């Protein structure tokens, strides 16, 4: 999996990218909160918020095709969840709930998508820490993010290797067995690697105290600097 799978457009340069991360987080939270508190009778509010978010997406340079693709992955589950209510018992109450869930769900999803694509993950982590996330959680989160792609690629390679030695369609029983073996192998390998990494951390003085590097204490926020440096290229 490419290292920029989620925040593919997070290193672009646009007005949205240059906003301070705290502000972007606050905006996202506000939109989601407003959308969830306003009852569905006032649906013009939801529509207006949704249009604001879509405008933000285009302002940030996120292509429409990408948005549609992500929505297409998300909508089916939401539709099943919301439509099961009126379909199982009919009535106005059911439809009202379904429409509420659909509207709010789509709004929240597109807003989060905007946030993720206008902020790089490391800056997001730093901002989360600044606003109160415990240091060890941020450190472990950063670690997880760093090794996620490695584990993912290893998993992909193992699946490819499995496919290369599968002739004909495997039965469900075989798929389950090889699937659990895959997870088991991945687990053993990943935790063995984690042991080696622990050794490397100790070799550079790690003793459990989490230190965070703050290179730009006095200079403008790093997201601005990143945008500036990408302009220079």
């Amino acid at each position, binding site marked *: 999996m490419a290292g920029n799978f989620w925040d593919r457009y997070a290193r672009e340069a646009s007005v949205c990218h240059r906003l301070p991360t705290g502000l972007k987080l606050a905006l996202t939270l506000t939109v989601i909160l407003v959308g969830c508190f306003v009852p569905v009778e006032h649906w013009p509010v939801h529509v207006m918020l949704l249009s604001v978010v879509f405008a933000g997406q285009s302002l940030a340079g996120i292509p429409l095709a990408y948005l549609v693709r992500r929505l297409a992955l998300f909508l089916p589950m939401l539709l099943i969840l919301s439509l099961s209510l009126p379909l199982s018992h009919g009535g106005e109450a059911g439809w009202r709930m379904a429409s509420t869930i659909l509207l709010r769900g789509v709004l929240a999803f597109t807003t989060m998508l905007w946030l993720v694509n206008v902020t790089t993950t490391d800056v997001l982590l730093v901002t989360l820490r600044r606003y109160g996330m415990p240091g060890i959680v941020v450190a472990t989160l950063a670690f997880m993010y*760093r090794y996620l792609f490695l584990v993912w690629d290893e998993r992909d390679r193992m699946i490819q290797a499995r496919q290369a030695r599968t002739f004909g369609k495997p039965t469900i029983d075989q798929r389950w067995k090889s699937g659990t073996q895959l997870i088991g192998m991945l687990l053993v390998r990943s935790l063995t690697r984690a042991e*080696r990494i622990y050794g490397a951390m*100790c070799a550079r003085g790690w003793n459990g105290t989490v230190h*965070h*590097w703050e290179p730009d204490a006095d200079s403008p926020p*790093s997201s601005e600097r990143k945008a500036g440096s990408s302009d220079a290229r």
Partner: protein
Amino acid sequence: MRIRRRLQNGKRVHPMPVDETPSGSTPPVDETATGDVSPADSPIAESAPAESPWAIQVRQLNFVYPGGRPALNDLTFDVRVGEIVAIVGPSGAGKSTLLMHFNGLLPSEIPRRSDRAAASVSIAGIPVVRENLPDIRRRVGFLFQDPDDQLFCPTVGEDVAFGPLNLGCSQTEATARVIESLTAVNLADAISRSTLQLSMGERKRVCLAGVLACRPEILALDEPFSNLDPRARRNLLDCLRRFNGTLVLTTHDLDVVVEFCTRVVVLDNGRLHADGPPAEILANPALMQRHGLEIPFRLRT
């Protein structure tokens, strides 16, 4: 962590005092190098780091893998300050295991100073005991074979800053060291790049920068040139040449050993079989064949 608990304690033999003639100065022989010293009861005497001419001293080091297989067998040798030593030998000879003793990563239970079975290894005159571990780790920079085992922060700058921050540097000092180390490995512009998108050569150099940022006196490198294309290998070699200290590395690349190293030791089955200048040791056909090596191209007539 489990590295410490799983691996057994090495067998301990009372090491020799520090002022005995080290085996490193004996001429090249293709038999087990024996020091002309007798075992004594005293542990390695601590001496002030600035005075000691010895970067690393190993005295009758024994180590057994979990499961019982012996890894290192009565090893004794020394490394002077400023030397560039290559440890070569067939796979499974114990090269990485030996190297990990220099940084206190092995054995899993480092003995305390008060233990009867005292340290078999000393760094700059300081015995490797539990009380001295932070100091030892600061003096010896260790580079693992797989850079992904060592590059564990999301961005390059954060990873290089990891060591200095753990050493107690302030944010400004850490930033200065980050810039200094990345410049030393020609990656000064990569400071905010993601570690996920580096080439193999770049990853190795960032790891080196991360280790250099701790300002070590000794670099212990485990197969630094593996998996590198020729240009990346050249880049790394240039960076290593600029290092002002003692270098110990394990490698299979014997041409680099001839080009770059001042001394080579041949390790096989946990014992030292030869020790001396590369041009002599690596040109000995019988020795090379006996230990699963080949004469490098540069020395072939």
